[in-house]
C-alpha cells in the first residue's frame, strides 16, 4: 500500500510518499502565505514525481505547526509524534530527538517503540531557532552553508548574548567592527544557539542515542557546537528535514487516526473559545 506524509511547518512544506516502507518520492517547498495552497501544489508535484494519481494513495497524514490546514489529509498527528515515528524508523537506537526548525527548537524523549515519553520546547523567542541562524548569516553577509563551513575553522569560543534575533544581529555587526575573524563569529553564533537548544534537550534528559533532525541539522557548524555542548555524539540521518514527513507517512501506514483527527478539531474549537 502507498501512503503520504505531509509536514507543513512555519517556513517549509515537506512531503514524503512511501510504498511498503520505502520512499517513492519526496518534495520540499516554501510554505508561503497560503499554506493550504502550498501543500496542495507540492502534493501534486510529489505525485507526479512518483508517477502516481491521488487515487493510488491509501492514506494521507499531515503534521507540523500547520498540519491541520491540509484539507485533503485523512488525519493529523502532532509534530513531535511524527518526529518520533520518523526517527525510530530510521534509527531504532534513538532515545533523544532534537528537532530545530525555522521557528522552534524542541526535544523529545522516546521509548524503544518510539512512544513519546517526554517533550520540551524553546520559549517563544527566536533565539534557539533556525531563523536565528538565517538572520545571523545575513548579518555576517554569508550563506548559511558558508557560515557552517566557517565555524568549523574556528578554534576560539566567544560568548554571545543570544537574547534576541535583532540584537544578535547587532552583536554580530559589532564583532565585525572589532575585526573579529568571520569564522570565530560564525562559531559564536552556533555555540549560542546550541546552548539554547541543549538546555531544552536537558529538560527531557539526554539519553543515547541522540538524533538531530530538522533543517538546522544539515548545518554541520551547528551540530559540532551541539556535540561540544552536550559532550555526546549527535546522529543526523540523511535528509533530516524530511524525517517528520516520513513519520507522518509511517503513521498513515500503521495508525487508525480518527480520534487524533478529533483531538485536533477539539483543539481548534478550544483556541477559538479562547479567542472569544
Amino acid at each position, binding site marked *: 500500500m502507498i501512503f503520504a506524509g505531509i509536514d507543513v511547518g*512555519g517556513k517549509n512544506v515537506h512531503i514524503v510518499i512511501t510504498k511498503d516502507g520505502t520512499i517513492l518520492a519526496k518534495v520540499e517547498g516554501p510554505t508561503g502565505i497560503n499554506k493550504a495552497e502550498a501543500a496542495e501544489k507540492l502534493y501534486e508535484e510529489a505525485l507526479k514525481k512518483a508517477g502516481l494519481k491521488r487515487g493510488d494513495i491509501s492514506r494521507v497524514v499531515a503534521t507540523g505547526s500547520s498540519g491541520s490546514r491540509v484539507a485533503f489529509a485523512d488525519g493529523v498527528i502532532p509534530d513531535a509524534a511524527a518526529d518520533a515515528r520518523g526517527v525510530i524508523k530510521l534509527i531504532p537506537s534513538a532515545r533523544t530527538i532534537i528537532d530545530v526548525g525555522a521557528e522552534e527548537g524542541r526535544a523529545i524523549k522516546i521509548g524503544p517503540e518510539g512512544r513519546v515519553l517526554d517533550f520540551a520546547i524553546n520559549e517563544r*523567542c527566536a533565539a534557539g531557532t533556525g531563523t*536565528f541562524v538565517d538572520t545571523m548569516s545575513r548579518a555576517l553577509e554569508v550563506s548559511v552553508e558558508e557560515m557552517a563551513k566557517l565555524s568549523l575553522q574556528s578554534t576560539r569560543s566567544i560568548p554571545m548574548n543570544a*537574547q534576541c534575533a535583532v*540584537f544578535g544581529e*547587532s552583536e554580530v*555587526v559589532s564583532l*565585525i*567592527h572589532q575585526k573579529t575573524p568571520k569564522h570565530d563569529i560564525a562559531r559564536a553564533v552556533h555555540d549560542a544557539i546550541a546552548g539554547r537548544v541543549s538546555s531544552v534537550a536537558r529538560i527531557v534528559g539526554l539519553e543515547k542515542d541522540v538524533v538531530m533532525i530538522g533543517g538546522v541539522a544539515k548545518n554541520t557548524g551547528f551540530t559540532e557546537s551541539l556535540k561540544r555542548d552536550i559532550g555526546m555524539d549527535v546522529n543526523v540521518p540523511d535528509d533530516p528535514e524530511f524525517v517528520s514527513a516520513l513519520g507522518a507517512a509511517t503513521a498513515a501506514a500503521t495508525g487508525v487516526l480518527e480520534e487524533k483527527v478529533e483531538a485536533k478539531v477539539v483543539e481548534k474549537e478550544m483556541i477559538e473559545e479562547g479567542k472569544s
Partner: protein
Amino acid sequence: MVEAKKVEYWRWPEASWVNPDIDWQKGKLVTVGVDVGSVSSQAVIMVDGQLYAYSNTRTGSDSPDSAWKCVNMALKDSNLKVDNVDYCIGTGYGRVNVPMAQQAITEIACHARGANFLYGPEIRTVLDMGGQDCKAIRCDERGKVTKFMMNDKCAAGTGRGMEVFADLIRVPVWEIGSRSFQIEKEPPMISSTCVVFAKTEVVGLLQEGVPENDIMAAYCAAMAHRITELLNRLGMEEKFAITGGIAKNEGVVKRLEKELGVKAADKVWYDPNMRDKGLPFDTQIAGGIGAALFAFAMLERGKAQSARKA
C-alpha cells in the same frame, strides 16, 4: 531578514539638504553632529548654532563608512569641506566609530537637545523611536536630560521591527502609517512581542484573509502599546515630542497619542524664520542636531579646541 533580490519595501527614501540662506564662510564656527544609528545615519552641519545642512542615509555594515557616507552626502551641494569643520561630535549606536569626530556623546543627550532645538524649550518629554531601541527621555527647558529609560533586551516595537514587518507584508514602510487607518474598525493588536514571532502571527493573519490594512493597524497598535508602557514607567510630562524614524509613522504616533491621552508636538520648526521659510522638517536629524549644538557649546565654553584644518 531581507533577501537582496526582493523589492526592498523596508527601504525608506534617503535625503539631504543645504540651507541656501547661510553662507558658511561668513560664520564663525562650523560644527558637525554625526549620528550613526543601527539602521539610519545622519550628518548635521551647523554654522554658529544655525542649521546649515544635513543628510539622512541608511547605515551600512561598517560605521566609519556610514559616517563618511552621510557627511559627504550632506556636503555634496556645498563648497564646505570636512577640513573647514571646527568640531565634530559623533553620536548614536556607532558613535565611537565616527572617524571625523573629536568626541562622542550618547544619542540620549543628543536627542533631548535636538528635540529642544526642533520643537522648542517647552518640551519636557522626548520619545526617540530609533532603529533598534526606544528611548523615553525627560528633560528641562534647555534640553538637558533629567531622567530616561530604554526598552529591554528585545527589539519588539522598534524601527527594525517595522522594517521587517514592511518587508513581510510587502508594503513600503512609509505607506504603512496612512494605510493602517483605511480600516472598518480597530482590530485587536498583534499579541507577540518578539519581532520574529510577530512575523509568524502576521503570516497567520494574512492566511486567514485578514485585510492587509487591518494587519498594519494591528501591528502599529502593538507598537504604540509597547511604547506607552515605557512612557508610563518614565512618567509623562507635557509637552511631549517624538524624534527618530518611527515619528514619521502616523499609524503608530496617532495610536500612541490616543493611548496616552496626550498629543505630540506638531512636526514644525520652533524657530519662526525656519518655519516661515518652510524648511524641511526631519525628526530623524534630532540626534545630529543635538551633537552639532553640543560641539558648538564645547567651543563656546572653551571646553574644546577648534580642529579646523583649512
